[in-house]
Every structure is written in structure tokens, then in C-alpha cells.
């Protein structure tokens, strides 16, 4: 094998300034980073390794769309060591980034199609990148009808509330919001995502592509509901989560069958998942 010595250090992160931190829920914040006149080279569905010096790295999906110039956004749930450290950062602090990594949502298969987005909780973060890509004024006419179904455990757990309002106001998409349990102020739909999907969304399953992301249990039952509605496995697209370190298919952690989720994924169709060991 030829050796390329010109190669850069693939593990070296670049530090970017945090422009803004947007609190989403009690344990989720969105971090907007300043790319300083650069534009991000990522495509919807990709992720990056975020590095906090002295603490470590965590793989986080990129929630901003590449059509948003000069910035990168990550919505992060405070869960482990690194995400807790990221939550302690302030505006103007610097955060290390390497990436973008992974495959993307299959954009060429999605153009000229009707798109049904289904997200649960923080699972909206990776989908938001694609949704805003599709809704961009220059891109919107490349896609047909767009329906978004978004659910969370409670009204307090909804993320991107400011964005949801923007989507609700658009007349070129259908937007449905649901929560598992409402509260005194909640006037919207109450119900689990798979149930709301079956009851409220009437589409011709052979004419639509569905892109879903959320907690594993929600994905499982949503896929079941979509299949009942008549969706075909290649038309159901989702993303997998695995523990990752390198992001480049070398460290071995995210290996499932002959695939590395960090390199060959994280986006897979349900048809691909059916042919993979269920080890995720």
C-alpha cells in the first residue's frame, strides 16, 4: 500500500469560538459556532467529534444545515462526561471540532420526492439539518411535499421551539406536533409518535420517503407503524447511534457486521438494517 506522507494529523481538532448558546430544555442546549468566514463542508446527516481540552471528545450530529453560511450548530443533551463539560462552557469559549464524518442522508434519492420527517425528542437535531436544507429557498423546489411530525415526552422537552414556530408558519409544509403527556397550557395533540402517525397522517406510502430519528424505542415502534401503513423498507431512512472514538472507521468501537457506523453510517435505510446484526 502506498504511503502518503503529506497527510495531516487526522486527529487534530480545530478550535472554534462559541457565538451563542441557546437553552432548549432543562438538559439540552444548542451551541452555535463561528466558522470565521468559512462555510461548513458538511452535508445533512453527518456528525463531528467535539473536543473539550482536558476532558475528551464526543461524537455529535450537526444540526445546522449547510445552507446556513459561516456557522455550525450542535444540540447537545447533558449525558456523559464530555457533554456535561460542553454544557459548562460559555459564549466566546473555544470548542475543538474535527469532521465532518459519516455518510449523509441520501440526497439524490430524496430529490423530487415527498418527504415525511418523524422525530422524537433530541432526535430532531440530525433531522433539522436536512429539514432546513430542504426548506431553503434555493432548494425547496427540488423536493415535493414535506410533512414533519415531531413529538417529545412533555411540552418542556420540545427542542428548537423558536424553529418549530417558523415551520408552523410556513404554508408549503404540513407540520404536526405532539407530546406524550400535556400540561395545563398545552392545547395541541397528545399521544405517542407512532400512534399520532397512524391516526393523523394519510399519505400514499409508495409515493413518500420517510426519514426518522429519535430514541431507540420510538424508532422501533415508528418503523413498525410505517410498515403497517405500507411503507417499503428502502423508503424508511434512519440513523444509528454507537459509541465512537475516532470517527474514521479505525478504532473499532462502532463496528456492526462489515460496517463502521461512523464511516458507512450513521444513516441507514430500514432495508440495510434488516440485513445487519441487531447489535446497536
Amino acid at each position, binding site marked *: 500500500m502506498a504511503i502518503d506522507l503529506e497527510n495531516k494529523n487526522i486527529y487534530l481538532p480545530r478550535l472554534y469560538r462559541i457565538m451563542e448558546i441557546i437553552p432548549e430544555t432543562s438538559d439540552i442546549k444548542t451551541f452555535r459556532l463561528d466558522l470565521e468566514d468559512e462555510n461548513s463542508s458538511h452535508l445533512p446527516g453527518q456528525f463531528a467529534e467535539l473536543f473539550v481540552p*482536558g476532558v475528551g471528545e464526543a461524537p455529535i450530529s450537526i444540526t445546522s444545515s449547510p445552507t446556513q453560511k459561516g456557522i455550525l450548530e450542535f444540540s447537545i443533551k447533558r449525558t456523559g462526561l464530555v457533554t456535561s463539560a460542553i454544557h459548562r462552557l460559555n459564549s466566546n469559549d473555544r470548542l475543538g471540532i474535527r469532521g465532518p464524518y459519516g455518510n449523509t442522508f441520501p440526497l439524490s434519492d430524496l430529490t423530487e420526492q415527498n418527504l415525511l420527517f418523524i422525530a422524537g425528542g433530541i432526535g430532531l437535531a440530525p433531522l433539522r439539518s436536512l429539514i432546513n436544507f430542504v426548506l431553503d429557498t434555493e432548494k425547496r423546489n427540488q423536493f415535493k411535499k414535506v410533512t414533519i411530525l415531531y413529538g417529545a415526552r412533555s411540552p418542556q422537552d420540545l427542542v428548537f421551539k423558536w424553529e418549530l414556530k417558523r415551520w408552523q408558519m410556513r404554508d408549503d409544509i404540513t407540520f404536526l406536533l405532539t407530546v406524550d403527556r400535556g400540561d395545563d397550557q398545552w392545547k395541541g395533540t397528545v399521544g405517542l409518535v407512532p400512534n399520532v402517525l397512524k391516526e393523523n397522517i394519510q399519505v400514499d406510502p409508495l409515493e413518500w420517503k420517510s426519514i426518522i430519528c429519535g430514541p431507540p424505542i420510538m424508532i422501533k415502534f415508528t418503523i413498525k407503524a410505517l410498515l403497517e401503513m405500507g411503507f417499503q423498507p428502502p423508503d424508511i431512512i434512519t440513523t444509528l447511534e454507537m459509541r465512537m472514538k475516532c470517527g474514521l472507521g479505525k478504532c473499532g468501537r462502532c463496528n456492526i457486521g462489515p460496517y463502521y457506523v461512523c464511516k458507512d453510517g450513521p444513516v441507514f435505510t430500514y432495508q440495510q438494517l434488516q440485513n445487519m446484526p441487531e447489535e446497536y
Partner: protein
Amino acid sequence: MKSGKVTKNDLVQWLKTHQNNFLVTEKVAHHQPELLCDQSKEIKNIKEALFLPWDKLFNYHWENQQWNVDNIQPSTSPRFLMALPCEARAIYEVLDRVFLQPSETESGYAARRQGLKMVIVGCINPEPTCFCHLVGGNPYWTHPDALFILPFHDEYYLETNQPEQFDIIEQGTTLNKSEKEEIEVLRKQMEEKTNQEKLPEDAPQGLYDLFEDQEWEDLSWKCLNCGACTFLCPTCQCFDMSAEGRLKGFQLKTWDSCMFPKFTLHASGHNPRPTFKERVRQRVLHKFSYFPLREEGRYGCVGCGKCIEICPVNWNIREAVERMVKKIGNRS
């Protein structure tokens, strides 16, 4: 291809002139102690030469109220590495394919690899734990870039495609016709043995299809999940990355093992490989199914038998693979 033979004394003299930068694997040291010099450095596992057990990736520090990261330039000093064919295959067939992937080349590995001159020592006394034939190797396997040496009638047979890298070849005398034939016959015998004993072509896919088989439960029962096998394995490539030092430190890459439960543990507490069964299955299938399915049939195991040798409970990967391969398509 340039070949010839030299006396043992000439070879040892040549080794001595390079002894300050000569690495020798434990297996070679054990098989051919006469090739050791005073200064040659013995390594337990061949991968230590390239894929360091403990590797600094970059430095970071807090200064002027902000974080800074500084790259570390990898060193490139030339070295010789003397290893058995099975061990050398771990580099050519497995590690190079992981760490030298175009566009994702690991600069540290590439620099060390560039400076490395491989001396492959033909294996004359295979051990009962060895099984290189099963995975496509043989005791005389060599690579055109390397210097191949083989004890031959009180002398040493040498061959290489890189005479300028291994000047010892110039001191060699040409083999006569019968000697040439002898080498060819030996080679042929070993290649035939490989062709006869090699795992069946469909083994990687067949094993993959047996993912859900109940036998894995039984196979994993004895394993302690201590990870000793993975640390002594020349092809095990999995690693961890961690930040060492609070305000001033470095990002560290260290060997890791799929035998450990935390290897795949999610921050949420979910673990895709929660028990011994999944982890043992992962080690076997990654080497004998997943890697060959990705890498044009090349096994992620070179059959050196090191893991069998050192396992505290005599867990035998060869037996496990042969047992599962027998089940493919219910052949018996």
C-alpha cells in the same frame, strides 16, 4: 527478485552494523536466537513498532484565557524489523489497510511505516498453536518489499526486490540449480498445504449468516473477557482516545479491547454488546467475517497462535472458528 545465500557469520555481521536500530519480535528471538545482537530491541508484539501501545496525538494547553492545541510531528527514523511471516502479514494484510487508508492516513503510523525495513525470517519450527495455513499464510510467506531470510544448509538464503535497502544481498553467492530447486520445492509444499487447509471461500459470509446461532453462547462460556488475547494479537487494531491532563496535556491513543464491557457502553447506559457472548462473537467475527467481507477476503487473523498460547483458560480461537465453519450450510 534478487536472491542468494550468505554465511551465518556474514549475516550476523550485517545485522550488527545496524543493531542500534534493529527491532526483533519475541517470536524470532525465540526461534532464531543466533540472529540477536547485543543492542537489538526485542518487542512482544509486532504492532508495537507502528501502532504504539501509548501514542500522543497532539498537545493542548490553557493560555491567555483560551484553549490552544498544538500538533505533534511524528518521528521518521529508519529502522529494521525482523519478524516471522505470520507477524509480517499482520502489517501488510491488516494494519496497513486500516491505518494507511487513502484520505484517512494516520500520519504517525505512516511516518513509522515509511522508515521501517522488514526482514522476514522464514519459519522453520511452527508451534502446535500455529495455524497460518488456515488464513492464507505459510511459513515461507514474504513480501517483495521485504528481505526474506531462511536458514539453509548451515547458511542463509536471502531474497528481496529492494536490493538498495538491504545491501547484504550484494554479498550473497548465487544458488546453484539444485539449490534453487530445493527452495522451490519447499515453497511449493507449503503453498499446497495452505491451499488444502485454508478455510473455505464462503467462510466469511457463512459465519456472518451464523450470527444468531446458539453455539456462540456455548463458545463464550469459558472466556474470562480478560483481554490478554487482544493485547498480544498482532492484528487487533482497536484503540481508545482520551485527554490526559487538565489545563495542559495531550490527547492519548491507547490500545483497547472489544473484550471489555465498557468498549461499547453508551453514555445513556445502553450497551449493544452487554454479555460475554456478544463480545466473544465480536472478536471471532471481526477477524473471520467482517474484516474479510470488507477487505477482499483477507482475514483479520494471521494464525500466529499467540492468543492460544497465552490464554489463561485455554480458549482456542482456531477451535471456535473450525467449530462454527462446520456449521455453515449444516455441513458436518
